[in-house]
């Protein structure tokens, strides 16, 4: 055996550059099928996702609510482009870093904030918390906190759509860490074999908690599709227009052919894994580099450059969103906690067995 081979298993001792972005698209929004008036709502929503989480983090630090809090900040272009490209009745499912996607899908900031606070007005009646946002009415199937466990569920949503011939497709998001789970590999095989209309999207933000992708995954992530003959590709998740460009064709094709697709979206989270993360695993330089192409700033600059809206109009929207988020906090704080009997609702309970004596 080569000498080097017996020194270690997982490579250690070095901060790697965690992820490299493909070049952003140079196409104009109009070329990508977007009208001028489409852009401001997108900007507004991305800013809402950002502001919601900044405020949520403040409230968490003030001790207003408990549990885990994983922030999506930096990845907003992914959620915004997804809901833009999909039909409203296509099915979305994701992991636990999920506030952004819910807000993008149209779950109200009030219902989201109330869920963080564990109030009965929350999108999961306060029973799920930050990691378990559900809004099934809007075809938003959760918020799942066991890494990789919802990948089969995404395929299952697609299976039911195919069975019912309803024309809907499913899109299933997960982190780079989830790619290493067996569930992904089993699901990919069946999704391809059964030709399920599902887009699998790995949001490769460079890290699984404190472990860079190169330290946890062999080979390129999107290539995992190849072994199953699944079409796959890479997209720039830090740029809304690039994401639209990549997703549009994929979504169309999946709907058309009923074959799955695996997209690796290269993105970055600006905050720690959760609220308690010293982040020693990455360099300040890397963080700064990715901050320099913040997806929200980028879209704002584009809107200004293309003279779609003025700075003043943008400022007004920002102010409006700031207020909306403050109102959501107010709503959450004033909402009632779930009633005690909720503990035994939404779950089977044997009525005549004295479990609780």
């Amino acid at each position, binding site marked *: 055996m080569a000498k080097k081979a*017996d*020194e*270690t*298993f*997982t*490579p*250690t*001792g070095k901060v790697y550059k965690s992820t490299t972005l493909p070049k952003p698209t140079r196409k104009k929004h109009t070329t990508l099928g977007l009208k001028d008036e489409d852009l401001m709502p997108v900007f507004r929503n991305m800013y809402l996702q950002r502001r919601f989480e900044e405020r949520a983090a403040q409230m968490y630090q003030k001790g207003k*609510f*408990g*549990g*885990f809090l994983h922030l999506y900040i930096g990845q907003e272009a992914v959620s915004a482009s997804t809901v833009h490209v999909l039909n409203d009745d296509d099915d979305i499912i994701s992991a636990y870093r999920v506030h952004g996607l819910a807000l993008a899908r149209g779950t109200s900031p009030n219902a989201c904030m109330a869920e963080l606070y*564990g*109030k*009965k007005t929350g999108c*999961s009646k*306060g*029973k*799920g*918390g930050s*990691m*378990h946002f559900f809004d099934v009415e809007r075809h938003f199937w959760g918020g799942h*906190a*066991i*890494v*990789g*466990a919802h990948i089969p569920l995404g395929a299952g949503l697609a299976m039911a759509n195919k069975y019912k011939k309803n024309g809907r497709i499913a899109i299933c998001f997960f982190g780079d*860490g*989830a790619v*290493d*789970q*067996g*569930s992904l590999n089993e699901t990919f095989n069946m999704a391809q074999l059964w030709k399920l209309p599902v887009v699998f999207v790995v949001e490769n933000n460079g890290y*699984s*908690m*404190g*472990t860079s992708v190169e*330290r*946890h*995954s062999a080979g390129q992530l999107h290539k995992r599709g190849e072994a199953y003959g699944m079409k796959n590709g890479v997209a720039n998740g830090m740029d809304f227009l690039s994401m639209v460009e990549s997703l549009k064709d994929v979504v169309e094709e999946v709907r058309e052919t009923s074959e799955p697709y695996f997209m690796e979206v290269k993105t970055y989270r600006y905050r720690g894994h959760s609220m308690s993360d010293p982040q*020693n*695993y990455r360099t300040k330089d890397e963080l700064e580099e990715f901050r320099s192409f913040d997806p929200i700033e980028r879209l704002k600059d584009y809107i200004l450059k293309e003279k779609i809206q003025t700075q003043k109009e943008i400022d007004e929207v920002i102010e409006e969103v700031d207020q909306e988020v403050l109102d959501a906090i107010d709503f959450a704080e004033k909402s009632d*906690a*779930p009633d*005690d009997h*909720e*503990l*035994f609702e939404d*779950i089977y*309970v*044997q009525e005549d067995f004295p*479990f*609780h*004596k």
Partner: protein
Amino acid sequence: MSEKQFREAIREAMVEEMRKDDTIILMGEEVAEYNGAYKVSQNMLDEFGGKRVIDTPISELGFSGIGVGAAMNGLRPIIEFMTFNFAVVGMDQIINNAAKIRYMSGGQLKIPIVFRGPNASAGQLGATHSVAFESLYAHIPGLKVVYASEPYDAKGLLKTAIRDDDPVIFLESEQMYGLKQEIPDEEYTIPFGKGKIKREGDDVTIVAHGKMYHVAKKAAEELAKDGVEAEIIDPRSMKPFDFEMVIESIKKTNRCVIVDESHPFAGMAAEIGFIIQRDAFDYLDAPVQRVTVPDAPAPFAKNLFDLWLPDAKQVIDAVNTVTYRN
């Protein structure tokens, strides 16, 4: 003696054993470079290097099974689960392979492996992150199950676990890692199957393990103010279980309350309760009571979660029931 945190006690047990036996390795998510999600394995990568302290991908099924295979072939792996909620993904390897291969092979091989990490709830983390697994694992022949409540016990029991030639499930708690206790500087081990009377009393026996020991302790302190002296037994290992110590105590107190963070149906408390009714029937002055989480998953909302998790008040209520003070 020196004061040690729970996490330090566990770390010392691993480090001391690893220094003596180079077939012992530690692997799990974030155990090496990140120094452990809960800092249990702090500095262990520095001391032992990446060959023996190994970061794994989020592949619980894979690394549990790789651990079992390595154990079959001469290593003594310690597998850290970030929490036991995630071990569920690897349960096939634990329940079908680790627990059964020695038996199925007619004893041709042994599986000296420790699966360790935090168990049960740790605040409002939601339904999938809050399950107490001791009853489930104890149900499976071939597994030994330990759930310590204090640093002293944890260190001695973990050393025993690492030296054991059978698979051991070693349960901890995020909420206990910071707990401090004086522990001996010199080497010691604690055998499995030996409980400990952690508080003496004549009026009622409270059996409580792991995090629930601390709930029982708080209840006992309150009860003492009312003149009720509880005897608290911490069984320390769930399997093997020190039935004798419990029975002997009940012969003195004639009453028993079991506190267990598992769900009630077919849980540890049910098993202990059965043995008590069979072996101490004539000594009981009241039916045995148990305090557990209810037969419902953990809710997120704070008010519901507080309702869900056993607390000292519930233990006091149960004691009042068995002492007919309600």
